[in-house]
């Protein structure tokens, strides 16, 4: 059987590992596979526009910051493709899919046949319609922050004199700011301007931006994951690092050297970074009739509405267990697990991935943020020295939470959201103060800790 995967990132890696795991698993029916066309080991081909060995996309800001390097950024070891017997076609872009002939056509016109196809094409930056912005050939230049190539281009353009304007205070815009910003010592936050030498790492770009201004249409930072109070804490922390915010203030026009905001403010810049969200790469399948919403709709095994065509990762929607809605959950763990389920299914083993939910874990300049589930409904807030915690409840269950500061053991909260355990089955007051297994009923706890043995 020939399996073709479009993309070489998280979802693709998940699929490769899923295919090979299915083939090794006892449940795998080699005979059935053989009948379906081919031996028990699928021929896997990865085709991707990006040229690099599979790398961790979130690490592009850590790279600029000097906290990792290109070798350590590799999401899987150098021998990943060899060990898994995967043929790679990197630096090649798929232009179309022919579901009748069961081939994909590349930009250079060559075709690659498939028996099963996985779209793991992720997403691309969304460029908002801002007057003067690069669309036309004479439009103002801008950077995006979505790939290793983007990060290198940004680094090459950056000098100690660069005034940087970032459009968007979402995860990508703020991570970009952290990557190129100055890093101040804790005690330097109160006036003194000593900088942290970042882990003494040689990879650290010499160049830090001279100034970073961030314009955001929404009235707060990280609008998709934080509430007002937690966003204010994060914003104040970022302002202490020297970032300047214009919130509730969209950019209305740019000319290559300055931007005019909705309220008339003019911001001069040397480098413009557009980080206003992403657009799933779904056209290869929507053009041939795949069912889609914001992204490709699949079953929990990754099957699209088209025969033998699967989709996973940022280009596919998931059924969010916290509220039963289908949505794009553009986070890396989700891409891996969707990819893995699709890989298994393509190899003939249906193991549906039914636990998709939003979980975000991010830090900026030393301040950690953890959020999970749905941030709506009844809620309670705990403010402590170690930070901010807000819990959301729905139908007597923990529906979601926002933590700024101490996220130690917060996976226990995530498990409560995922499992939908009724709140009154546990000592919630105890666990709210400090996540711990002591909050569970003894029987439940023993089962959690020891499995079926006790």
């Amino acid at each position, binding site marked *: 059987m020939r399996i073709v995967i479009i993309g070489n990132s998280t979802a693709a890696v998940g699929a490769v590992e899923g295919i090979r795991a299915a083939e090794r698993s006892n449940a795998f029916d080699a005979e059935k596979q053989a009948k379906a066309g081919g031996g028990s080991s699928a021929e896997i081909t990865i085709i991707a526009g990006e040229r690099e060995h599979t790398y961790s996309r979130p690490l592009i800001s850590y790279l600029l910051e000097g906290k990792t390097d290109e070798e350590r950024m590799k999401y899987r070891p150098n021998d990943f493709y060899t060990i898994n017997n995967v043929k790679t076609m990197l630096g090649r872009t798929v232009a179309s899919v022919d579901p009748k002939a069961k081939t994909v056509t590349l930009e250079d016109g060559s075709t690659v046949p498939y028996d099963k196809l996985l779209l793991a094409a992720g997403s691309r930056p969304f460029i908002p319609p801002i007057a003067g912005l690069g669309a036309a050939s004479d439009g103002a230049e801008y950077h995006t922050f979505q790939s290793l190539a983007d990060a290198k281009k940004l680094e090459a353009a950056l000098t100690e004199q660069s005034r940087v304007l970032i459009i968007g205070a979402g995860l990508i815009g703020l991570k970009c700011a952290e990557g190129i910003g100055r890093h101040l010592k804790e005690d330097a936050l109160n006036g003194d301007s000593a900088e942290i030498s970042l882990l003494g790492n040689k990879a650290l770009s010499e160049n830090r931006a001279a100034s970073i201004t961030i314009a955001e249409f929404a009235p707060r930072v990280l609008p998709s994951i934080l509430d007002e109070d937690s966003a204010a804490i994060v914003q104040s922390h970022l302002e202490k690092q020297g970032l300047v915010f214009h919130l509730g203030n969209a950019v209305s026009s740019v000319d290559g050297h300055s931007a005019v905001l909705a309220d008339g403010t003019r911001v001069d810049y040397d480098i413009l970074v557009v980080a206003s969200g992403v657009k799933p790469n779904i056209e290869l399948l929507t053009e041939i009739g795949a069912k889609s919403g914001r992204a490709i709709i699949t079953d929990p095994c990754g099957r699209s509405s088209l025969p033998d065509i699967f989709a996973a990762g940022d280009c596919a929607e998931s059924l969010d267990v916290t509220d039963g809605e289908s949505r794009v959950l553009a986070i890396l763990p989700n891409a891996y697990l969707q990819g893995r389920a699709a890989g298994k299914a393509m190899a003939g083993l249906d193991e549906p991935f039914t636990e998709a939910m939003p979980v975000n874990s991010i830090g900026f300049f030393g301040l950690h943020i953890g959020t999970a589930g749905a941030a709506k409904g009844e809620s309670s807030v705990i403010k402590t020295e170690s930070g901010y915690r807000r819990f959301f409840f729905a139908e007597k269950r923990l529906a979601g939470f926002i933590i700024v500061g101490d996220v130690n053991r*917060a996976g226990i909260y995530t498990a409560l959201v995922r499992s939908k355990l009724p709140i009154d089955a546990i000592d919630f007051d105890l666990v709210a103060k400090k996540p711990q297994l002591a909050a569970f009923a003894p029987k439940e706890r023993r089962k959690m800790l*020891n499995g079926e043995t006790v």
Partner: protein
Amino acid sequence: MKRIYVREEWCIGCHLCEYYCAFANSGEDDMADALRGVKINPRIQVEDADGGVTYAVSCRHCEKPRCAEGCITGALTVIDGVIRLDEDKCVGCYTCIMLCPYGAITPSKGKPVQKCELCLSNGAPDATPSCAAHCPNRAIVFEEGASPCGL
């Protein structure tokens, strides 16, 4: 595979496992040198529940390791059933902390995160993980058994 199992009815809450864990991972040869004046941050934690019940919590080496599945860098891998951490790759994003249902992978001083690796990476001399080897009441055992199932 062999895993760590805890028997809460036998745990006397002495916290010795925490000290042996801290020692095993300290790189020191002498326990007193390793622990003198140190506020330990062990990879196993003794919890107190209602009614004087105590038990130790450390990584379960899950068959479905949510930490490793979600790790954004590939720093967490499964090697012969043991969930291992490559400290060199880890960037301290804490995604694994947000995903572990046991709270068994935790922030660490000097390194981004830490977790129990069954004393396979720390050069501890015992064939049995140090916590289990030194529990005075066999409330922590290292044996073949089922994979725990989280929540």
